[in-house]
């Protein structure tokens, strides 16, 4: 930030903001869903000692959004987790845009490679 007109300063502030905002929003959504979850399921007995996989609706982006819209507590928490995973992805998109604005072709390519690995993991794997 000590280099006034160097664009290097602004990209750092933008990425810092994306990360902070993403973390805060996802934590708030998780806390909201968590409170509703504990109210409705707090008295039950947990079964995390045996792996049985999650129900199909909590395993995909579409299913999670559908559940969250119905305000199913587990769906809301899972939506918060999705936002959490999306935060670093948004950071990569932010960097991609910043490199594109500076016509830094090499780093546009590099950012796109990273972004496609992330999207593959989230959507296609």
């Amino acid at each position: 930030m000590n280099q006034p007109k160097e664009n290097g300063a602004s990209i750092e502030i933008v990425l810092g903001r994306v990360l902070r905002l993403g973390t805060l929003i996802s934590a708030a959504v998780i806390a909201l869903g968590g409170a509703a979850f504990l109210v409705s399921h707090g008295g039950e007995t947990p079964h995390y000692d045996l792996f049985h996989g999650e129900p199909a609706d909590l395993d995909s982006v579409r299913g999670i959004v559908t559940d969250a819209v119905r305000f199913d507590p587990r769906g809301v928490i899972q939506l918060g987790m999705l936002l959490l995973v999306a935060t670093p992805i948004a950071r990569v998109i932010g960097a991609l845009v910043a490199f594109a604005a500076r016509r830094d072709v090499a780093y546009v390519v590099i950012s796109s490679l990273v972004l496609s690995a992330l999207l593959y993991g989230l959507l296609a794997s």
Partner: protein
Amino acid sequence: MDASGLSVLEFSLLLALGSLLAGLLGSLSGLGGGVVIVPLLTLVFGVDIRYAIGASLLAVIATSSGAAAAYVREGYTNIRLGMFLEIATTAGALSGAVVAARLDANLIAIIFGLVLLFSAYFSLKSSRERTAKKTPDRLAARLKLDGTFPGPNGIESYSVRGVPAGFGLMYLAGVLSGLLGIGSGAVKVLAMDRAMQVPFKVSTTTSNFMIGVTAAASAGVYLHRGYLDPGLSMPIVLGVLVGATLGTKLLARGRVGVLRIVFALLVTALGLQMIVSGWRGTL
């Protein structure tokens, strides 16, 4: 201890408390809270290791994003270097997550234990700053990886070396992250600080910057496999996030030498226990 007999509410509160402590100690020691989440869940709470790894991945993303937001503004983080090396860590993370599904849970526990022992050892080795000016490395110069950081006497510049070796180590860091649900901060710092001769403070902040992206790559795979349980992950993510934020505030003042040793001993003990449990097949 066994989770049986506890209600979801009691279990969640205990998890949140344990995760808060893990996040606090992790941020104070510089090891990251992620390395102790899986041992805590499996050894203490009796959680299946696949659920534990999924929850830990999410906690790692939360702490990395939270801390990176602060670090990136201070000017230490080398964004180009981070972005370039993320090609290796995300590729590694995807392969690690795919391999994790095929490995026996007990074998994963043994690998986890070995990584814990390495992390503990690594956290106690003192870092040294280098100021020697060297001739620029051609590959690093071409990728514009060289950078500057705010040193004690104003802005200092440094040049990056050993790009292929660093890139290879970053792939390994990604594999371990996807396989074990950790941030692999120790391996990332090793790659930059030692192999690429990046100043230590730049290495640690850039490593933290990369951890969230690395973990996000494998989190998608864990989600589709049904390894991310919302009820389990919720208290862990929130607990670790609060603990790590507290730790960063405390870190601004005060020395943490003793704490670092205590945490390293704890990590060593957990590492040995993971190896023993994995070996006996009791996990």
